[in-house]
């Protein structure tokens, strides 16, 4: 089956004056390098990584807000690399974007009905009455009371506002929704509800999601496939089960160890207190992008030579000089994430 979205060998660079800012020099060249992936119909693919990993940049390119410097973005087999202005209305309708902060994506001066009316008016020929009816339905789809349409965004809680933002994307009846950290700013209880909603909408309407997040637990829960990004490179990719089990890329390993789990028997993260080499800023473009921070650093080969892409399974690949079998052996203790090490409480530190 043909994928809904296919990204091929994507390079994206921010050019110009940004490069002249002190300590930001590395941004002058590509922030995304050679990224390829697909999103199938009815599928959720997650892009995970820290700030500066290029995950939002990729979403912006797919949305047409940035022009890639190299590579192709195919949507239903058509090349859509063009800027947002040159895209057809149909394409706009099919790819929708939801942002992290609903406070800045919802117009505070407009009532909910007028916010949701805009996409309906833009994309569909509907009578005023039909639109009003549709707005009520959309609010029900995201489990909000249709009477909310008369309210202003400020009269809603953060979770409710994010539901409205999702309803706004649904109004276009899209095939793909790009979700950029849409639950990061929400309370855990609200977060769980929004994730439930996303899954429900997917089951009902077959929508695909490109889900951008830094919270690995959320990703594990929602996505079928995961790409782990570091400095614009795909360090590891695979199905959710593959990425969350051995062998881990050393960077994935570090991310996993950094998540504080709500479990008192698990020790705090085997991560060093300081990163020593200042967030890996000085990467020259040679060798592995993660080499300066890598806890499994081999030696000069990591600093000098581009690591090979190693296949673990037809769907699982790692970008690392260490063969997957060796990684898996070294990470044997990580099977249940943190077992075998004494809790800091128990060790009395």
């Amino acid at each position, binding site marked *: 089956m043909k994928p809904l979205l296919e990204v091929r060998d994507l390079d994206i660079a921010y050019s110009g004056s940004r490069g002249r800012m*002190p*300590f930001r020099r590395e941004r002058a060249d590509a922030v995304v390098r050679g990224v390829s992936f697909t999103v199938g119909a009815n599928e959720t693919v997650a892009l995970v990584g*820290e*700030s500066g990993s290029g995950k939002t940049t990729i979403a912006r390119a797919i949305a047409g807000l940035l022009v890639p410097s190299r590579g192709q973005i195919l949507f239903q087999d058509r090349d859509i690399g063009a800027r947002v202005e040159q895209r057809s209305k149909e394409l706009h309708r099919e790819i929708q974007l939801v942002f992290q902060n609903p406070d800045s994506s919802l117009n505070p001066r407009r009532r909910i009905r007028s916010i949701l009316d805009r996409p309906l008016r833009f994309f569909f020929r509907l009578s005023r009455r039909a639109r009003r009816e549709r707005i009520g339905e959309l609010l029900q789809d995201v489990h909000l009371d249709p009477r909310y349409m008369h309210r202003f965004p400020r009269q809603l*809680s*953060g*979770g*409710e506002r994010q539901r409205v933002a999702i309803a706004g994307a649904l109004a276009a009846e899209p095939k793909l929704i790009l979700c950029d950290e849409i639950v990061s700013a929400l*309370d*855990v*209880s*609200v*977060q*769980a*509800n929004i*994730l*439930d909603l996303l*899954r429900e909408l997917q089951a009902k309407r077959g929508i695909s999601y490109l889900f951008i997040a*830094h*919270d*690995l*637990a*959320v990703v*594990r*829960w929602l996505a*079928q496939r995961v790409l782990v990004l570091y400095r614009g490179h795909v360090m590891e990719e695979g199905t*959710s*089960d593959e990425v*969350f*089990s051995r062998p881990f890329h050393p960077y994935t390993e*570090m*991310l*996993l*160890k*950094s*998540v*504080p*789990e*709500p*479990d*008192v028997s*698990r020790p*705090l*993260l085997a*991560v*060093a*207190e*300081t*990163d*020593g*080499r*200042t*967030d890996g800023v000085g990467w020259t473009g040679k060798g592995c992008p993660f080499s300066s921070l890598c806890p499994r650093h081999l030696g000069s080969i990591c600093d000098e030579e581009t690591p090979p892409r190693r296949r673990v399974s037809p769907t699982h690949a790692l970008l690392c000089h260490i063969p997957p079998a060796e990684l898996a052996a070294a990470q044997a203790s990580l*099977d*249940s*994430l943190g077992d075998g090490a004494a809790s*800091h*409480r128990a060790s009395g*530190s």
Partner: protein
Amino acid sequence: MSSPAESVVEVDELTVDFWERDHWVNVVNKVSFSIEPGETLGLVGESGCGKSTTAFSLFGYRRPGSRVRSGAIRFDGRDLLRLKERELRSIRGARICLVPQNPAGSLTPSMRVGTQLVETLKAHRASTWRKAEKRAVELFAQVGLPEPGEIAERYPYELSGGQQQRVVMAMALACSPSLLVLDEPTTALDVTTQARILKLLFRLQGEHGMSMLYVTHNLGVVAQICDRVAVMYAGELVEIAPTVELFENPRHPYTRGLIAAVPRISAPTGGDATLRGLLRREELPDGCRFAPRCAYAQTDCFTNPQSLAPVAKDHRVACWLWKSIPGARRVAAEEPAQATPVPR
């Protein structure tokens, strides 16, 4: 538990209201807790539950349009709520310090970070500029900034989020406070940076022997660094217990819902375990404020106000039904030893 006389700070029946349009709305209701020397108390709850309002009261800070209806905050033999602004100043930033959520917002953008730290030192401790500078570099080294002398020369925008948070922590530690209030200090940071900052906090507390009040909605962080946890809901304390006890034996239905709602890597949550509905201030009943969202609520819950009552050693809960609610150890028991596949 040590006697109240030994506590670093004692919050006693704190009640705070906010003025909204034409009436007072209660946001913190009879909240009492104490923090012992060297202890880290976690204050958790959803946004709008009053946890930050409670924490900021420790600085004698009152949001415009708010009033402290009753209560006391005893620190060093004095009631912080009844001190004059001038007296508060000698405590704020020196004895009780804040590490805020957004470090960039608490640093002056146009001033080198070293200078800012020197100003803090000069404000609270008479010292020469030269000595303060030396101390600033020491403090930067203590919070794990590489090349502290060079960092001191930089402006906030030249630092990463994690480095900015370290600078703010150095400022908070400058006067060796007895209490550090941390308001979601890692929420805006990446997980790896968060992990490092938590480790750093753990070490600094050991070195300085200070007490901490850690305000957060992240139960994962709480499980990792707090000694005791206080859970707030709609302005009230609903449960307080040592961390291990709280996670292994949560009693209040709200605490259980909150713990169950956290997505975990090791054991993904199911959707049915999550809390129902939302906190609605306008619909709070006279009785238990959680009753409208509680799966176990009975008619009496809506009319009988609940107050904290002991259920075990150092463990108090504000729910008269705690004994009859089935599966008290449910949350702990549900967690399988091995990761289960994600249900799709």
